[in-house]
């Protein structure tokens, strides 16, 4: 075993390093090294995230058209959008779509997670099957829904007619409210697995001893859910909800494949309207402005999830205040 002198000598030797070239010396500087290690990730972020985002924001302040670079026009795009009823319709649709779809996804997803958390035969298999709607490419499931909602060939209408419950086919996508509800239903169907599986993971981290203790104290199942499951699940619920809101708010594929924003633009979300104006319409500046207008909503939704649902004390294991 080395004595204290030897240990001190070894320490000195280490401190005296490096004696090599300036490159070696520079690389030995923890600050420089950390910077170098972060550089690849930072480059990726800059090139693929910051630059496109920055470009999008810049385009929103210009009158760029497809095939023609624009000039800076300040807030003109936003002023024009402010007076555009179609834009406001898209905003309200997006908010409505996000709120209802998120509520639906979380109510059903949590329920499903609770069911799956019980001991079931062939548990792993069932859990894998549950994920199918999430795994199937959105465009495929959207096409399936397009047929399910078809005014002439809908299987739902057909089944209800055969059962004698209705005498004419339901116009799922033909009136604004029907179309909105149908799209929300399709989005909920698609989103449930993500929520359910994430929450299931959260549920499994809750110690069974808490439930045992509660059971001994005579807590009802609702009380166990309200006072154990929900608070323990809250941190993960917040994260999952944030993601879910972001995904729903920026949804594009379902709407584009099923209604293209119709009838008469009443199911346009901000994302589909931005695309319609920017790419087929050629108004890149205006499309970018619509896309940028989504950012405040997204920030708000994210902040809401974090601050309202995931108060820090919970996350750090403290008690609710």
């Amino acid at each position, binding site marked *: 075993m080395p004595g204290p002198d030897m240990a001190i000598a070894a320490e000195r030797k280490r401190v005296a390093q490096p004696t090599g070239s300036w490159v070696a010396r520079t690389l030995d500087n923890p600050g420089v090294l950390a910077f170098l290690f972060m550089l690849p990730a930072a480059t990726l972020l800059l090139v693929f995230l910051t630059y496109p985002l920055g470009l999008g924001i810049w385009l929103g302040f210009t009158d760029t058209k497809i095939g023609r670079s624009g000039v800076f026009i300040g807030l003109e795009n936003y002023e024009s959008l402010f007076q555009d009823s179609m834009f406001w319709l898209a905003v309200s649709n997006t908010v409505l779509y996000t709120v209802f779809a998120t509520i639906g996804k979380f109510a059903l997803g949590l329920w499903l997670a609770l069911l799956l958390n019980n001991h079931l035969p062939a548990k792993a298999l069932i859990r894998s099957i549950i994920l199918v709607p999430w795994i199937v490419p959105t465009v495929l499931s959207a096409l399936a829904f397009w047929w399910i909602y078809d005014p002439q060939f809908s299987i739902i209408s057909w089944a209800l007619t055969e059962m004698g419950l209705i005498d004419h086919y339901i116009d799922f*996508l033909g009136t604004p409210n029907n179309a909105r509800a149908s799209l929300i239903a399709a989005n909920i169907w698609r989103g449930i697995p993500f929520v359910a599986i994430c929450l299931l993971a959260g549920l499994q981290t809750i110690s069974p001893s808490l439930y045992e203790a509660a059971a001994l104290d005579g807590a009802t199942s609702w009380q166990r859910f309200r006072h154990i499951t929900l608070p323990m699940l809250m941190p993960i619920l917040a994260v999952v909800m944030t993601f879910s809101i972001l995904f729903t708010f920026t949804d594009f594929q379902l709407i584009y494949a099923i*209604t293209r924003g*119709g009838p008469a*633009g009443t199911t346009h979300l901000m994302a589909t309207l931005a695309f319609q*104006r920017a790419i087929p319409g050629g108004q890149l500046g205006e499309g970018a402005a619509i896309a940028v207008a989504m950012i405040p909503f997204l920030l708000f939704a994210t902040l809401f999830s974090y601050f309202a649902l995931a108060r820090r004390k919970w996350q750090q294991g403290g008690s609710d205040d």
Partner: protein
Amino acid sequence: MTGFTRRDTLKIGAGALAGTTLLGYRPAFGEVMAADVPAPKFQVEKGAELRVLRPAKFVQGDETLFLQNTERFTQTTGVKVRVDNESWEDLRPKTAVAANIGSGPDVVLAWNDDPHQYPDKLLDLTEVAEYLGKKYGGWYPIAERYGKGTDGKWIAMPIGASGGAIVYRKSWINQAGYETVPTDIDNFLKLAQNLKKNNHPMGFALGNAQGDGNTWTHWLIWAHGGAMVDEKNKVIIDSPQTVAALEYGKQLYENFIPGTMSWLDPSNNKAFLAGEVGLTANGISVYYSAKNSTDAAIKAMAEDIYHAPFPIGPVGKPTEAGLLINTMVFKHTKYPNAAKEYVRFIFEKEQYEPWQKASIGYWSHPLAAYSGNPIWTEDPKHAAYAEVMKNMLWYGYQGSLGYASAATLADFIINNMVSQVCSGRSTPKEAAAEAQRRAERYYRT
């Protein structure tokens, strides 16, 4: 069933020809007549190579023959050509990017008015266009409008347009008391009512359907004398003519099959082939899928499928719309002569005629002589698509082509105006005023 069956019609071939003439089509001679005009001499650059961008096939023959023609060009001139088929929705942005950055494809078969969005990036094709015009009986006026820039020079040459004619089940039209589809709008409305009574209603797309939705709603407005803008690009959609068109449209809609509010482009094809509707508007594809179907029942339906032009409204002339492809060459090409030679080559009879035939008439011609292509007479049912480009108006009618017309179309302003009224959510006056506001955002100076 009364009237002719297709077989009867074929038996009296000459009679069929006379019939099409009566319907207002140009008489077809079954042969493309080309005048003896010397071709411009383009000295193809040594080692030239070309890249061509075109919309992906809608019918297989379109692509097969286009590639064969290109191959033949390579054999004749030694110029290597690469053809990229781009999906319909991506064609516009890709073309625009090429125009912006000055590289990429040399020749593009672009949509409608795309060349008018970057005229200064395009090679002058006047020499080729004038030669082709002289040789093949002249360009239709619509081709000149889409092809010529503001200075009268040809910046692009329309190669074809796909139109939506009325597609109908003859036996059901006969049952509704009509021998064929009436040419006036009053009788057309009566036909709609009768068809509905007989449970074989008509149906036109009212969802955001780029092809079928735009075609018929533009016809409706134009037929009544309405237009988005005047010749000076002043927005005039909020007019008594538009209101009259919308009132008529609403009456027509009341006799549609339920559910057309959400119809996208494929919906009417599906409903028609399933026997749900007796009449709709479409390209020739419905007839062809029936004719070539492996399902005996659907194949039998082809016998009963006929085509007719859209009825003529109070303006007294055809007011049809169509989707057009416009051939253009970018200035950034390293081989302008090879590109011009290529463009000339694909428009020549030896290439164009078989291409049009293989496209089963899906693309209708811009040059008058191609009315003589046998494709238009070998099956009388093709005739309704023969003169799409002779009769069609341009999107953005009566104004000029460019950013505003493209954006207005892409934003479905006319389409939405019609569907708002049909669904009863707006009165014709409110919808016209709303469309005026929306269009003015694009046409502001």
